[in-house]
Structures are given as C-alpha cells and as structure tokens.
C-alpha cells in the first residue's frame, strides 16, 4: 500500500450475522433502525481501561505527544545542531513562504492538490463507467488496481526506467520519437552543409539555406551538399539522379563519394542523393510550394510550370534529430511524477466508484429512460448526482494523500540529480530540513501540513457523525 489510501470518512458496518460474512464497507446502506449501536451497560471501568490502555499509551506516545511537541518546537529558532534557541514566534512559518526552496516545495504541493485529485477521480470515473458491461471487466480492474499493491519505491524505479533520457533506453522517449518520426518523417541532417566548392546557397544550418539565383521549370536545380555520413548513410539513400518530369525540379545530393573524384557541382556516378529533405519554393519571399526529396535526392513541384523561384531548405532539415523530452528535467519532472502517481491511484478511484455505481438504485435510471431521457442525460442528471457522495469521498481522500506525498517524489528525485529541487514538495522539504537538523523549520512545515489537512479532518468527522 503506497501511503494511506486508508484515510477517510465514515466507515460502514456490515454486521457479520446479517452480511453472511461478506465484509466491511461494501457500499451498502446500513440496516434501518441502527442509528446507534446498542451498548451493554454496567461494565466495570477497569475492564474497559484494560482494553483501551495499550492503544491509548501508544497513540499518546507516538501521535499525540509528538503533535504537541512539534507545534511548540516550530515556534523556536534552530541552533547549528538542532537545538532550540530563542523563541521565534511564527518566523519559521514565514520562512516557508519567503525562502526559495521551501516556497518551491509549497508551489509544487499546490500543483499536486489542484491537479491530481481531480485527474484521479475523472480517470477512475471513466474506467468505472466504461467497464460496467465489459465481460472481462474484472481482469481490467485487477490490472489497473494492482499498482496500488506495490510500493512507491518500486513504482518510482519502474517509472524512472521509463523516463531515461536516451530514446534507445527509455520507453517514454522511444514512444515520443516514434510518434514524432511518424508524424513528420522528414529526415534531419545536422552535419550536412552546402558544398564549399560550389557556392549556390546562402544561409546557415540555424536559418536554413536559400539559393542565390532563381530556377524555372525545365532547368533542374542541382543543389550540392557535403557532410553526409558515408559510413552510415540513410538506409534508403540511393545514388543521386538528375530529376526529370514536369514543373520545377531539382536534386539535393552529397557532392562527394568515398574515395573522392568527380566534378564539384555535377552529379557523378556513385554520389548519393539526400532523401527526406524538405525543399520549399519561394516567389517574392513567399512560400508557394513545399516538397520532400526522393531516395535519390530528386524533388519536383509539378504544379510550378511557369515563373522562376528561389529554393529554400528550411532549418528543420539541419536540426539535430528529435530525441524526445527531458522527463526528469526542470520543467517536466513534476508532471512526470504525477503521471506515475496516476498510474498508481487511478485503480483506487475506479474500484470505489464502480462499487458506488453498483449500489445505485437501478429503477431510478430505468424510470428516467422510460421517460425518454437519453443515455447522456441519465448519466448527467441521475447517475452523477447519486454518485456524488462517493466522488467526494474519493476526491477528499486523494487531497489528503497528495498533501502528504513523499515517497514517490523522493525516489524519482534521485535519478534527476540537480533537477531534483524542481520536484520538491513539502514533505520532502521537511525531510531535508530534518536531515540538516533544522528541527524548527522542519516542525513548521509539519504543522503547515496538519493545518492543510484540517478541512479534510472536519469533513471526515462530520461524515462520520452523520453516519452514526
């Protein structure tokens, strides 16, 4: 169980004799007339004390006393080795918001709270609705729910493996480059440049290259380049050939072959065409046509039969190959960890919402259908309102979990090295300050976390009293 999914309100009770042992919390209404469980009067108090004592002493020592201690400690300044020095008032709390690293942690916590509970609830709802009548729904649910059973550590390692930068090693970037290369298959040649012996083109690899003179249909443009990697040429490259055909045509080729020889500026036998390069035709500074070279380097604009055009090879032809994104870099590290977290928790929301939906009164929805409501109307006007208490419980539970989030952020910060600080959250900040023996500062962060969960606590107590 990664952290607490066990928080949250109002537990139901299913008395075993009634439930046939089916268990707790099945999302069913309590039997009527059971507002307050009957009590047996007249127990001697010392028996009760005996039963309560171990739990009481434990909670007092590990939970209650620390709560008070931390509250008081948060009001004192820190000495170099963790000792409390002078009374600080709320200075440690002010520091959270004025010092850059702890404020970054606070901001990230805000992002988590704003984004994640909503996404988890929506994902869970979508899965719960879509699997309602699928025959293999149970298999699907087990697959999606299973990450809940594994540790944040294992999940963190699993996703760090996906987020490795090199597309050859990390699945994330392998998928991104795969999609990128499918959507825009034009090849890029960072080392390719115009032949220095025949100067037909102006520009640079950063701006792209433009021809100095203009070309017209019937007079093929021969655009010589050098710098193609002849040891590992593009797998589809073929010997360059002068193009033929209607309209404006030309060839982009590597004006050099292994072993040398040939005439600069002329397509000689054995010289390779440069495939997949984007070529644009310009007239009056405007792009009027765009095409891509063939395996033999030839290109043509069959529609451009009259007039003369400047040819341009845009900068994208010479940019370095797309290698995906830096998942654990400064901008994406928090979204990347959130994706891993959704993978873990979507199943939690799905299971609760599916159980909630199964417990809804079917007759109400059937009645709405008979009255002519569309499926969307039934879902929007009947199912959703009836399900809203469960949605709220899932949402609040996730808010509580996300406020306290530590493990998965901590684990995925490690491979990120220097970028780790961009993913900081309050609980990690607290742990760092604890490690630096800044106990006052750490205590203030801890109490801030408590303050932030108080609304959830009130919700929970309120919900519990309502159920009694």
């Amino acid at each position, binding site marked *: 169980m990664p952290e607490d999914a066990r928080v949250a309100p109002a537990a139901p009770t299913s008395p075993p004799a009634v439930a046939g042992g089916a268990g707790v919390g099945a999302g069913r209404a309590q039997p009527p007339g059971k507002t307050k469980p009957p009590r047996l009067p007249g127990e001697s108090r010392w028996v009760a004390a005996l039963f309560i004592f171990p739990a009481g002493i434990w909670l007092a020592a590990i939970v209650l006393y620390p709560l008070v201690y931390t509250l008081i400690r948060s009001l004192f300044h820190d000495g170099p080795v963790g000792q409390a020095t002078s009374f600080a008032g709320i200075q440690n709390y002010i520091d959270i918001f004025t010092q850059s690293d702890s404020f970054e942690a606070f901001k990230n916590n805000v992002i988590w709270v704003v984004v994640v509970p909503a996404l988890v609830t929506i994902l869970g709802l979508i899965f719960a609705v879509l699997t*309602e009548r699928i025959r293999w729904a149970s298999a699907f649910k087990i697959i999606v729910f299973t990450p809940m059973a594994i540790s944040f550590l294992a999940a963190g*390692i699993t996703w760090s493996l996906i987020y490795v930068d090199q597309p050859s090693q990390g699945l994330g970037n392998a998928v991104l480059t795969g999609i990128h290369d499918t959507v825009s298959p034009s090849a890029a040649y960072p080392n390719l440049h115009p032949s220095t012996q025949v100067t037909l083109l102006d520009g640079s690899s950063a701006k792209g290259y433009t021809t100095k003179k203009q070309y017209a249909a019937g007079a093929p443009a021969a655009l010589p380049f050098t710098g193609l990697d002849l040891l590992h040429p593009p797998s589809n490259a073929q010997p360059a050939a002068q193009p033929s055909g209607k309209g404006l045509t030309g060839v982009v080729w590597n004006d050099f072959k292994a072993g040398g020889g040939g005439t600069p500026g002329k397509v000689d036998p054995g010289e390779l065409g440069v495939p997949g390069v984007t070529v644009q035709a310009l007239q009056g500074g405007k792009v009027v046509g765009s095409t891509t070279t063939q395996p033999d380097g030839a290109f043509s604009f069959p529609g451009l039969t009259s007039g003369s055009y400047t040819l341009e090879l845009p900068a994208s032809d010479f940019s370095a190959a797309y290698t995906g994104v830096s998942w654990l870099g400064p901008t994406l590290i928090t979204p990347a960890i959130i994706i891993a977290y959704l993978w873990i928790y979507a199943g939690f929301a799905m299971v609760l919402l599916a159980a909630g939906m199964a417990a809804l009164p079917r007759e109400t929805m059937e009645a709405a259908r008979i009255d002519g409501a569309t499926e969307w109307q039934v879902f929007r006007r009947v199912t959703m309102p009836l399900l809203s208490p469960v949605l709220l419980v899932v949402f609040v539970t996730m808010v509580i979990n996300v406020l306290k989030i530590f493990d998965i952020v901590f684990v995925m910060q490690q491979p990120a090295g220097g970028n780790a600080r961009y993913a900081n959250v309050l609980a990690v900040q607290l742990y760092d300050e604890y490690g630096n023996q800044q106990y006052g500062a750490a205590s203030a962060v801890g109490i801030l976390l408590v303050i932030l969960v108080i609304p959830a606590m009130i919700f929970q107590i309120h919900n519990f009293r309502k159920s009694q």
Partner: protein
Amino acid sequence: MTVASSDIVTGAINRSLPARVVARTGGGVLRIFLIVVALVWLVPTFGLLVESFRDPAQYANGGWWDAITHPGQLTAHNYVELLKNSTMTSSFLNTIEITLPATILVVLIGSAAGYAFAWMEFPGRDAIFLLVVGLLVIPIQIALIPVIKLYGLMGISGTILSVIMFHVGFGLPFAIFLLRNYFSGIPRDLMEAARMDGASEVKIFFKVILPLGMPAIASLGIFQFLWVWNDLLVALVFSNATSEPITVALASQTRQFGSSIDILAPGAFLSLIVPLIVFLAFQRYFVQGVMAGSVK
C-alpha cells in the same frame, strides 16, 4: 448483500450507458480503448521484469524491449548476484522482521480498543473516538523529530523495534476506526448469551468478537501488512544500516540509476512480488479495507 459488490469484480445488473454504446457500435472502439489502457498499465511493470532479467552490459545499448527480439540478452545472473549481496538479503529479512510484528500488534491492540469503543461504557468514550477519527488524517511527518528524540531517551535508536513501534502508533487510528465500526454491528444477543453463561469480557473478546470480526480483521491485516512492507519514509528516518528494510537499501542506490540497474530492477521486483502475491490472493479483503476507509 452479494459478495460481488464488495469485490473488485463488480457486475452491473442493468443496461447502462456503456451497455448501450456497446450494443450500438459493436463495442469495437470501446474494447480497443480498454485494451490499450490495460496495456499501458501493464507495460511499466513488464518492462521492469524484463530489465531485471537482462544482462546489465546491454542496458546502455538499448531498452528492455530489445530483449524481445534478442532473447539471448536474458539471464538470471542479476538475481543470483542479488542473493549473494548481503546488504540486499539482510534488508529483505529486516522487511519481514518489521512487517510481521507491526501487523500483528496493530491487529491485537486495535481489536481490543475497537471492542471497548464498540461495546463498553466509559466516560468520554464518544469524544475520544472522534479524536481517533481525527487522527486518521494526521501526517506522520509531524512525529518524526519528537519520536526520534524519544527513542534516543529510551536507547532504542536505529533498531527494528523502533521502526515497528512507529508503524504501530500510526496504524492504530485506522485499526480502531475500522474495527470499532465492524464490531458494533455484531448482534448484541450473542454477547448477552455469552454473559449469561458466565463468560468474562476477555473470554467474549476472544471467543465471540475475534471470530465474528474476522472479515474486518483480515482486511485490516492485509492493509497494514502492505503499508508497512511498502513503507519508505518511516524506515528512512528510524532504521540504520543494520536494521534497514529493502525499500531503504534500494532507495540508496537510485542516485546512480543507470549503473545500479542490475540491483535496482531485480531488487524492486523482489520487493514487489510479496505484496503482489498477498494482494492477488486476498484481493477481496484488500478492496474491503480500502472501501471501509472510504465509501459510505
């Protein structure tokens, strides 16, 4: 109440929105979508599994998917090395030594308190119970510094016992909450009958409450087991090199992710296989535990 409604396997009874979509479109799009989602959920763990069986020399050359086309990359070598690695094996044993007592203690102490809150009269009972409900959401982070000082005074810093004690403390609010609610649903007649026969409270607790409360106790047990087994933060703070569980031992390797992958991948898999088995075997109780904490 049907068993199904408390299971992951929750079947709907009636024709609903997706049912009609399925009926109209033949379900093709929906089915493909769900298959894709299921694959997305499976692939990360599958990748970790394959990586754990790969020759680490291949890591820099390509991703785990290369092993599908080149099965020669697969080897059990990483696992053999892991079992020879004394840090890993002793930390794995520490995980067991921490998890079992922390689970059993929470179940026992939580059951006793749950029984008292459900069936005994004592002053302030309901107020104290509301306090316990409130404690459910208290983040464990607030207790780290005072408890580590407390352990220093007690002379148990860095021990397995210190880790266990902390887990028990923060496991109890949920345990009491869950069990009190379940126990209070046990029919009163059963206890009165036992009293008529002259049974003591202790005897009633062991002979009536615990057997009848088994479903809830099982849920709690699975839950607490998984929570303690998977914990990182508590152990990170309270254990030392000799008492650290496997999560801490592995976390210390994540900084050199690429060069430690031959330990990280099989180690992570070893650490997740136990909770995975527990989860799949007792899936129903696990789900009940989750829901007891949540759904009304």
